[in-house]
């Protein structure tokens, strides 16, 4: 009777420098330019800032990147936030990538339709466990929160298929769905005869929508017919899955590793990962911690709470560094590395969880081919006068090929610093 070991790290050791298989590149094979990708990560409980910004050479949260040989692949940025309400406890953490206007579209969803047009999934939303407050990173164009995948096994099934029976069932649902939509559209003509002209115009919405959904089902059917890639031989899911809050770090590890695989086999190019507010004591290594993640985050500047908090956050960053290293060591179709074409944004709109303050977010941009310089300071008295977190997103959008001069309430950018 023993706790099941969690050593997913091995798989990446075995997979170092694995070249990207052209057969997995799907529709982009013929294109010469490497595709752009975006990964948006938010920790709902924030990051302990004295150890986050690389301006301090001893910052503990930076060490995993240095150890992974990624010292020149990231920039931490201080001095930016949404200039919105400063209070509100945890309520507004979900606005990190939407800007200060609550319930608006998040950055990943802005780019997903274009960056994700050629992949099996336009975008994937992940969370390292269950969310409280329905506050995931991603929001669609109507500002509706997009439910993230919280089970590594569900993500695994999405990436590598879930067996022949499941595939047949999905095929049936998609095929019969299209014929049902045909049938109901034919039936609807009888309603058209029983209503007046104004309502007939209104009914056109129905016919148009039915046709579009038929097209969407057809697209999903096409992808279902294409074979799923095989998972790396070095990777396997744990025999039993446990998504208890206690197991947040273990599940997060799996999410990082599966996300690397998804990029390597080009199943998806746009991701968000939410690291949720942990109300339970976490298992770190094989030890159960003495208090909950949330309790540690209210550290009150006591060392005996800051140290375990930083240990948890270091575990998050270790996952991020492992993920980025895997991308760096894999060649993209144009010979550059996957990391060069993948923008990774890590941050939190909970700027100081101990006081619930929402001023001066911890933000990091990594990979993506930016002019990285470990740290830049923004603010009225700094060399970069920017103050809005969304300025960073404008630069990211431009780097990803979007001709955008603004995002949310921002009309400026960080091009001078990062491009």
């Amino acid at each position, binding site marked *: *009777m023993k706790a099941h070991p969690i050593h997913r790290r091995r798989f990446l050791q075995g997979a170092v420098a694995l070249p990207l298989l052209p057969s997995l590149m799907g529709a982009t094979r013929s294109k010469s330019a490497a595709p752009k990708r975006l990964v948006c990560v938010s920790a709902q409980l924030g990051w302990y800032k004295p150890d986050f910004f690389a301006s301090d050479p001893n910052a503990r949260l930076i060490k995993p990147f240095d150890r992974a040989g990624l010292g020149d692949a990231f920039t931490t940025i201080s001095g930016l936030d949404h200039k919105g309400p400063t209070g509100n406890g945890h309520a507004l953490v979900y606005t990190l990538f939407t800007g200060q206007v*609550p319930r608006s579209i998040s950055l990943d969803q802005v780019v997903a339709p274009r960056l994700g047009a050629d992949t099996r999934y336009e975008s994937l939303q992940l969370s390292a466990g269950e969310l409280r407050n329905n506050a995931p990173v991603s929001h669609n164009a109507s500002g*509706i929160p997009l439910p993230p995948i919280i089970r590594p096994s569900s993500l695994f099934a999405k990436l590598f298929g879930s067996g022949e029976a499941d595939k047949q069932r999905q095929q049936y649902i998609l095929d019969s769905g299209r014929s*049902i939509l045909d049938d109901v559209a034919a039936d609807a003509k009888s309603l058209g005869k029983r209503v007046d002209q104004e309502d007939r115009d209104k009914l056109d919405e129905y016919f148009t929508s*039915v046709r579009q959904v038929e097209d969407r089902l057809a697209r999903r059917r096409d992808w279902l017919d294409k074979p799923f890639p095989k998972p790396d031989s070095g990777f396997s899911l744990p025999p039993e899955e446990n998504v208890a809050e206690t197991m947040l770090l273990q599940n997060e590890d799996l999410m990082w590793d599966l996300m690397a695989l998804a990029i390597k086999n080009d199943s998806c190019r746009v991701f968000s990962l939410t690291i949720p507010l942990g109300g*339970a004591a976490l298992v770190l290594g094989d030890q*159960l911690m003495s208090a909950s993640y949330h309790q540690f985050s209210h550290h009150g500047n006591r060392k005996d709470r800051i140290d375990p908090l930083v240990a948890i956050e270091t575990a998050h960053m270790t996952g991020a560094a492992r993920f980025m290293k895997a991308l760096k060591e894999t060649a993209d179709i144009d010979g550059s590395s996957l990391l060069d074409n993948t923008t990774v944004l890590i941050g939190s709109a909970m700027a100081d969880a101990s006081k619930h303050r929402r001023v001066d977010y911890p933000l990091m941009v990594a990979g993506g081919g930016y002019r990285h310089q470990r740290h830049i300071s923004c603010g009225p008295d700094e060399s970069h006068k920017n103050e809005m977190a969304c300025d960073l997103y404008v630069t990211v959008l431009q780097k990803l090929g979007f001709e955008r001069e603004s995002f949310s309430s921002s009309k400026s950018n960080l091009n001078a610093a990062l491009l």
Partner: protein
Amino acid sequence: MSVSSFWKFLLPLGSLALALSAGRSAEPPSDVVDFTEQYCVSCHGPDKQKGDFRIDQLAWDLGAIDSRENWELVHDYILEGDMPPEEAKKHPKRGDRQTFLSALEEAFAQADREAKPGGTPLRRLNRVEYLNTVRDLFELPEIKLPLSFPEDATSAEFDTMPEGLYLSPAVMEAYHETATNIANLVAPLPRQPTYQASYGVTEIGGDVIRRWFGPKLKKLEGRFWDRYEKRDYLMFTGFNNSGWTGALWDTLFLAPASGVYRVRLLANAQADAGADGKPLRLGFYTFDPSNNSLPKRYRREWAKRVAEVEVPAGEPTWIDCLVPVEAGRTFHIYCENRFSDGKFPADNVAVGKNDINVWVRKAMADPAPTVELRGMEVEGLVDVAPRVREFFESWPPKLSQSELESKLIPLASRAFRRPLSDSEKGNLIDAVLEHGEEAGSPEFAWHYAIRRILCSTEFLYREADETDILDDFALASRLSYFLWSSMPDEELFELAESGSLSDPDVLELQIQRMLNNPKSQRFVKHFAGQWLGNRAVANINVCDIRYQWDENVRYGFMRSTERFFEEVLRENLPIATFIDSDFTYANTAMLAAWGVEGAATLADVAALQRHSQIWAEPERFSLDKLPAGMPVHVRDRGGVLGLPGVLTETGDGVESSPILRGVWVLEKLFGEHPPPPPKDVPALDIDTSQATSVRETLKAHTELETCAKCHRDIDPLGLALENYDAIGGWRTEYVGASGSIIDATSTMPDGTQLDGAASIKKHLLENREIFTRNLLTKLLEYGAGRKLSVGDRRVVDEIVANEPSEGYRFQDLIIAAINSDVFRAK
């Protein structure tokens, strides 16, 4: 083709059409055209469109409400002398003005005589109605909408009005997905996903329990932990009150499909009998883990008991149990008879502020025998859910003409909320039989049938058929969605079938029955939620630095509005109670926020809520006998204007806004809809923390003609409520550097002097037809699903004019509304 061109096409057909279309001739009479060309067109014509307004192309169709409202606005501007503005070059003589106004008024009167009530455009079910309908249709309260199911747009005053009910591809996709999910529940396809796993003690004791039982986690300290972590088995606490402490079996298992799972337990009882003298017994409870936050979802009263098993004493043995679990759910196990009832708190309220762990430790330290567990296996599916067998009587289902006639057609008829025509029946049955044939198995046929019904226009759109007066089935539907936000029940269907529902006496009894049914809670939630602003309060971000604010306060605000509304409804109180009342509602968090002497602090309330997982319900306060310690301002909180939720809706959570408040009072209580400010006028930026400027800033409105017309009505109402801060708390001076004393006096355009909320209430009580018309209009717009037409307005006028001298009571007004031609016309 637009409506008016449609009519033009019919014109030559005869004098009937000619008479009907008289109000629709495209050209205004010459008296109107002459006047507008002389005095209006230079600023509101082809060259300039001041205030975004162009008069020479204004549709002249006074029987249509949009056109009518525009011309009424023109009429009022001229009548009150707001137009032409002072600086205009030409001003009309009194006689010209009178000719113009008379011509307009005569045209209005003519259009009124011709207009008929009715004209609700085609509308689909909204999100709330859709969910309630599928749950009622299949009698499956477990049905959930996918989280990606789009919200309806909020472009109309109520979400039952077609303006916000656009059917986009995203909505259609959600309909198809939900229909498929429901078909999976009702008629599962062959070859469902399977699950098989076996677990040891550590895996079972996940999450919180892991802390107490996990043998390998050595960090735990103290005597208590040492005692338990050395065991290689788990013990059921038998303390079932708050699930998460009595439960086993955590977040490992999630049913991949609905059906029966075989659960095997390696277990033994420590004695032959529990507290009730019977063998120790384990109960299985299923619940939806995505429903609630972690501790809350384990509450046993929210779980569904699905199976039980007795555990023999002696050596551990494998015990089999068949456990039905719906897709996406998991289960917990409790020892049900370790203790006698009453030994431990029965609900969370009784646990109160004590840390629940105190009770758990007590339970664990108790010598009473319990059940020991050493392992568990889960395997499935071994059968379809029992309810599937019950519905189809056998599985796989039978598939034949007669079987479909007896099972499918009644379902389709309830889904369409009307009987199917013979050809509809034939088409559906043929298609289902054919599909079953093609797919090779009867499950597919039923799966197809359910999806086809749920994706059809007959299900998704309601009361669609073109007619003057709704037939009984359409009436049953409109009535049911009005008061229950869902499809009609069996009794309404039967009355429609017999053709007696439209009898006013029958209808009145039905309305009373429906209001007494718990489903009418949805009318409270959705009608009051939109009329009195709860939907906005649910999402507003309040500055918790400036205000005493947390989620318990928010809950109190929303529930006190509902409770207030509900009392007026259930007790059939006079509708004047909405204007002023001798009672109000508040919960403990609101009392804390109001600084009531001796009240619990917000932190206390929050702690209690955390432990009990139950929100503090508002209680009723009689305003004439308030308990000691209550601040004086509570005494004046009668009526909806005293409800803090209402006052919060009109702010941004930081500052109060006299303009938005004024607009709110006008729209929600006076029933007037000031047009939105024209695009070419910049918004005033009011910062109430710099208080000297509030009145000064608003003064700008009266100085600019563009603003004055509307703001003369808006601003005085807002200013009279300035003693309420952004969350409806009482204040006598503004915060900020100036700290100036608040002046809540103002003057309405008719000269009425206002001073505080009481003066607005007084004005409304003295002019009660304003509020009666307003509330009746709101009920009809919500229920009939349209902005009232010109013909509807005439019916409303009659009901208002017939108000009894003691005033309408709320249920009576609802009955009058439903019995009116507005509600009963298409």
